[in-house]
């Protein structure tokens, strides 16, 4: 099946139907999505800052990273589930939205950055785990991660302001787009 076909079937699914029909589903699912995204950012930020050497190198990197992983992954998992539900509600609109596509690309980039760090950079962690400056590759991974996650959250919020009118306006048409945004 082509991607647009898959998108249409997601939109036609029971979950999509429920998200559209229930009055309270969208606000509840969206609140959980925003909250868990914030937790993902907040917990990753602590690890990223440690990679950059902030606030100090006194506490071992692996220790900080290990105690936060479960919170990051737990929040990320809930974020994915709520995100898929929101997508199902208006799948074709999201699919055609530029901000949504940039967000998906940024998420892939965040994943790639993490994969390189976990599989390559972290191999030598014993040398820079504690009391010494981290290696440049680790500092790069930390800085890139903060930047990418900030972009993910900005473009995600941008979707809410653009997905309603992501189409070409016929020339000469007087459209009143002054309606409240979510």
């Amino acid at each position, binding site marked *: 099946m082509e991607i647009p076909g898959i998108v249409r079937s997601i939109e036609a699914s029971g979950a999509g139907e429920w998200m559209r029909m229930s*009055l*309270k589903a*969208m*606000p509840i699912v*969206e*609140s959980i999505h*925003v*909250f868990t*995204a*914030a*937790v*993902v*950012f*907040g*917990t990753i*930020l*602590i690890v990223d800052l440690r990679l950059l050497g902030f*606030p100090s190198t006194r*506490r071992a990197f692996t220790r900080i990273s290990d*105690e936060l992983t479960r*919170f990051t992954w737990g929040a990320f998992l809930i974020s994915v589930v709520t995100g898929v539900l929101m997508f199902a509600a208006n799948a074709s609109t999201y699919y055609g939205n530029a901000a949504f596509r940039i967000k998906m690309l940024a998420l892939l980039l965040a994943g790639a950055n993490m994969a390189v760090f976990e599989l390559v950079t972290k191999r030598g962690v014993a040398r820079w785990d504690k009391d010494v400056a981290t290696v440049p590759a680790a500092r790069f991974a930390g800085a890139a991660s903060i930047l990418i996650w*900030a972009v993910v*959250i*900005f473009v*995600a*919020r*941008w979707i*809410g*302001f653009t997905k309603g009118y992501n189409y070409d306006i016929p020339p000469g048409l007087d459209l009143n787009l002054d309606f*409240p*945004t*979510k």
Partner: protein
Amino acid sequence: MHEFAEWLQATSVSVTIQSVAWIIPLLQSIHILMIGVVFVSSLMITLRVVGRVRADEPFGVVWDRFAPWMWGGLVVMAATGLTLIVAEPIREFTALSFWLKMTLLVIGITSILIFGRTLRPEARTSATAEFSAGRKAAAVATVVLWLAIVFLGRAIAYDVEVWGSLSLHA
């Protein structure tokens, strides 16, 4: 209040913020990033109080690591939040969620002030650094409070859907 909101929404500052498409989403994004900073900082302090995270470190060290981020994040949130109110005062002032959020915010900020004043000296003098059940319950309660504040924040956009006839929009 509604007249004040209408007046504020018509001021040149408010009109300028509304007319530049990217300002409101940018402010909201910064606000959300700071939720992450403030909530997770408060969560780390609370988990230390209940002994689930960084139990090997003295409470004072954990407090000094996260409290400045919590306060710094709150200052940025106040700045972006106030600007968002100036930009869309009618949206905010006519939402029940907004007023509930502000009420809980006052309680939340007061509770972390009390936290800092009582827990730190207590942790310093106590040899075991183990907090009482009451202290632990209070710490968990503040996390729940922040959670409610976050949800009410997003609920501002859906006041009628969430509150039905109780909504000030209705």
